[in-house]
């Protein structure tokens, strides 16, 4: 009996808490998911800020469907099992009509089948694995997929930077950098260049000198690093210490104010592909950067921008659909044609966004627009 009591008491308590959530004026319930704790917490924090800011802006303008938007945000801890739990919670417990999130592909892949089976539209903010949207017709994403950025980076290195040899370094424990690195290698080789070193490193490590020594000694014209900014900054510093003077190229994971703060002079003269440039003259970009700064006292990074965009795309689809019905929202999403921070977004048949990339150069500690690449 004691055993039963021990199981049932917390269950009843939890149940009691759950049942107390109801009442108040009618609202449109939107779900948000991101890794707010755990080792991916830095990505989740930005994602949460981006979603919250977008929702707040919509609410100021009267919400959607004539109702205020209530955001239910859940932490997936960067873990697939937690992801499956929170997606189910948002749908079944909080009764959300649509979900924005999440960041890590492995977690999106656990959440997507749940959204698909309950017919709740989902837009991942930053999951680049092509398989995510393959799960079903309710699953969309706001970011590029792996092949695009790796290809753009390779073409830029080969043509614009005139690089004939490249060395590549990436996080082996994370599918995003690995995917980019592989597509870079494929494209760069295809263009006629040669990849002289292709080195992985462990997640969370701070010492990259063993790999970099090998890479620098191969004397590449360019180093391609597909990691996130926190690793990139250290890699750039250590590469410079080992005597590498050439340019470095990377992907949208570089976009963070911390890159130059941690990297200092070492990241001068480096380039990365991104969704947008902060000196873009489009008012929507200026607006976003200014408001984000005012609200959070920091420059937005790529994940914040993507989360902000994903929320706008989703809420716009709800507005177009004119109903909170999942199937209608899904159809509206599929025919999206919307100007957001990262450009004009349309979805292709696989529910991946078709949008241009820009190349950013780090000059004088600032991000400077270099060129735009169309898909």
């Amino acid at each position, binding site marked *: 009996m004691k055993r039963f009591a021990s199981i049932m008491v917390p269950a009843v308590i939890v149940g009691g808490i759950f049942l107390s959530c109801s009442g108040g004026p009618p609202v449109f319930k939107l779900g948000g998911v991101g890794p707010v704790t755990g080792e991916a917490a830095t990505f989740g924090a930005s994602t949460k800020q981006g979603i919250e800011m977008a929702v707040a802006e919509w609410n100021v303008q009267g919400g959607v469907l004539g109702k205020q938007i209530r955001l239910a945000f859940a932490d997936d801890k960067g873990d697939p099992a937690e992801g499956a739990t929170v997606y189910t919670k948002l749908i079944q417990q909080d009764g959300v009509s649509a979900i924005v999130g999440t960041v890590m592909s492995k977690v999106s892949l656990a959440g997507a089948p749940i959204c698909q089976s309950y017919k709740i539209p989902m837009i991942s903010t930053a999951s680049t694995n092509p398989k995510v949207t393959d799960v079903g017709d309710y699953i969309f994403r706001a970011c590029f997929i792996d092949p695009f950025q790796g290809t753009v980076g390779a073409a830029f290195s080969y043509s614009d930077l005139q690089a004939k040899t490249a060395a590549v370094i990436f996080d082996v424990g994370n599918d995003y950098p690995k995917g980019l690195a592989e597509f870079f290698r494929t494209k760069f080789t295809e263009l006629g260049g040669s990849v002289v070193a292709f080195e992985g*490193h462990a997640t969370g490590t*701070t010492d990259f000198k063993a790999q970099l020594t090998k890479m620098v000694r191969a004397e590449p014209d360019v180093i391609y690093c597909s990691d996130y900014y*926190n690793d990139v900054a250290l890699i750039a510093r250590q590469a410079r210490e080992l005597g590498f003077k050439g340019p470095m190229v990377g992907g949208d994971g570089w976009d963070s104010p911390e890159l130059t703060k941690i990297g200092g002079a070492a990241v001068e003269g480096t380039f990365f592909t991104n969704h947008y440039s902060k000196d873009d003259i489009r008012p929507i970009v200026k607006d976003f950067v200014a408001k984000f700064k005012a609200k959070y006292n920091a420059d937005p990074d790529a994940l914040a921008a993507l989360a902000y965009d994903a929320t706008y795309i989703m809420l716009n689809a709800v507005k177009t659909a004119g109903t909170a019905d999942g199937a209608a929202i899904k159809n509206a999403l599929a025919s999206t044609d919307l100007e957001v921070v990262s450009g004009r977004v349309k979805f292709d048949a696989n529910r991946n966004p078709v949008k241009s990339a820009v190349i950013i150069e780090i000059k004088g500690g600032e991000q400077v627009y270099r060129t735009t690449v169309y898909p």
Partner: protein
Amino acid sequence: MDSVINAQQIVNGLQLGSIYALIALGYTMVYGIVRLINFAHGDFYMVGAFAAYGAFYLFNAYLGSGGVLAFVVLILAMAASAAIAQLANRLAYKPLRYKPRLSSLVTAIGVSMFLEYLFSALPVIGPNPRGFPEIIPKRMFTVGSAEISNYVVIDITVAAVLMVGLTLLIRRTALGKAMRAVSQDKDAARLMGIDVEKIISATFLIGGAFAGAAGLLAGMTYPRIQPYMGILPGIKAFIAAVLGGIGNIPGAVLGAYIMGLAETFATSYNSLLGEGIAFVILILVLLVRPTGLLGEKTADKI
């Protein structure tokens, strides 16, 4: 072979090993005396790094950049880590002192989780990585075919000084004698008039201070700090301590340098395997010599 083992890679390995050594020293000392795998040790190191970061920006304006500031930052980092270590000892480990050892270990995992999540949740710290200031200007020297920074020299020197200092403390002082007594038999030590709790407190204070120093040096060497930075180096340093014979001070340093070099060479041979090689070496060594390289053989008590 030159592509795998060369002068530069040896320098790289020594630098990595120095950081492991600094953490491993505190780890092995606490283990040697309290017999507790203190999983939170890596987090004490994280606390030290953040304290150094805070201290730098607090005193930068008054003290300018240079030796005095570096010294103040070092003292504050060591004090912060020592305080956290002592707090953990008093609140979480002391009540379990005479319970089965493995329950302290689980508590240590709890303390470790608590510190990581707390720092990540605190608004003033948060989960985002930060750049660490260059407290002492970094300089590069070219020696033969290798690029060496003054940090490598500093790290190795500090590790050596601390190792010698700790060895002397344990071998030559009254406190050290008491520590050795507690390490061998708590009850007998108490009967000899030693205040066991006081000795254990001192151990945590010193071990914590070491972690703080390691945090500062690691922050300077790899200028990126964040709340989860202690996990990986913590585990690696622990392995280094086991490799050298846990509880053995020179052993920890030896194990740390072997680990640093082995990891560097393995990574430069094939970077995809570098991650796991530390564990492979560890398992091989332990299977051949379970007490570690410098550990003493203990007989089973019947």
